């Protein structure tokens, strides 16, 4: 029985996302085509086509389902999910975390600034960001 699953979503559609490194090698990856969710994103047809084309090339399983239902009833006990600020995905993730072991995996950092840093205007952020913004891998990864 599959113990783990990678749950991909529209913010993280590439094979070299850190979620694939974090999850076990044999772990399946799935994208859940959830019409109710997609309607809430307001996407027009061209955006959905762009998304689907990307999924085809990604070589992951694409299923049409309700995200909550699919993830809750999937036999995997550990779900690996790329982090997302999307409130709709976060709500699903919160519900999922009550039932299963949910592992959130962050995107590669662009700059080396602590996530808790509160910024309101861009040039305040930039005064901190520019120290590592010009560095390969932001001087963070080998």
């Amino acid at each position, binding site marked *: 029985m599959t113990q783990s699953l990678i749950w991909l979503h*529209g*913010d*993280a*559609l*590439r*094979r070299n*996302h850190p979620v694939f490194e974090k999850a076990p090698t044999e772990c399946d990856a799935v994208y859940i*085509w959830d*019409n109710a969710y*997609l*309607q809430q*994103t*307001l*996407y*027009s*047809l*061209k*955006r*959905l*086509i*762009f*998304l*689907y*084309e*990307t999924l*085809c*090339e*990604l*070589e*992951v*399983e*694409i*299923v*049409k*389902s309700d995200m909550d*239902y*699919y993830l809750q009833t999937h036999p995997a006990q550990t779900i690996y999910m*790329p982090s997302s*600020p*999307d409130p709709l995905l976060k709500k699903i993730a919160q519900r999922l975390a009550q039932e299963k072991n949910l592992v959130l995996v962050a*995107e*590669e*950092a*662009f*700059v080396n600034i602590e*996530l808790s*840093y*509160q*910024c*309101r205007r*861009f040039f305040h*952020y*930039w005064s901190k*960001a*520019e120290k590592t*913004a*010009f560095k*390969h*891998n*932001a001087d963070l990864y080998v």
Partner: protein
Amino acid sequence: MTTTLPSSFDSREALIQHVKDLAPWAIGEASHILGGREKAEEQLQNIDPVSYVRSRNYGNGAVTRLSPYIRCGILSLNEVRNHALTKCSQSAQITKFIQELAWRDFWQRIYKQHPEWIWSDIEAYKTGFTTNDYANELPGDIENGTTGIACLDYFISELISTGYLHNHARMYLASYIVHFRRIKWQMGARWFLSHLLDSDPASNNLSWQWVASTFSNKPYIFNLENVDKYFGQLTDTSSSSNELLDASYEELTARLFPNKRGFK
């Protein structure tokens, strides 16, 4: 109920029909812009960040068109930055390019920290008007690109058919909707979210708020002279076809923000 969906098609037309069947509620048609990592990598190889710095404000400038791929995480900001660094002799040559990537990182951080800001006015409008002075609907002439202002109708047509717009054109449209037509920025933001392949609630909505002045110190406005300078080779910027925009900034400020005094 769960159904496994196909991931291989005989043609792009077959894939498009499949998506139409899957999402009959979705409006519009396909764009010529292709999804997928392969196309993203091809475009990444072709970027010219040094030329970008010089020409990015022009409609025919060396913009990368990577944004739809970055939006979906098909490329990471880190990957794009790392590649850009290999295309210059000194990193200072591509400061503006790196800053544009940083803008996306900045918007995403705000989205994570303040998701409640995405659809609400972060600050009051600095236009002499209150939120209630702005309309709650996007009129059909804007949605259909029949405003009668030639350059704006051209940009709207591009938006609807391709799902991509030059950043400058986005700002013109946003400014026209919020300040010339006095419509709530949220109405325009929803419209852009629907059509722009690269649009996400953070960069899209917060940029609309920047134009509107609910997340900046003053409203962004533009005039025909500016459109002509940057897009004159791409669209009709004649005065007769764009009368509403043909004014100085002083005239426009007085016309658009009559309640404000000492406004520049």
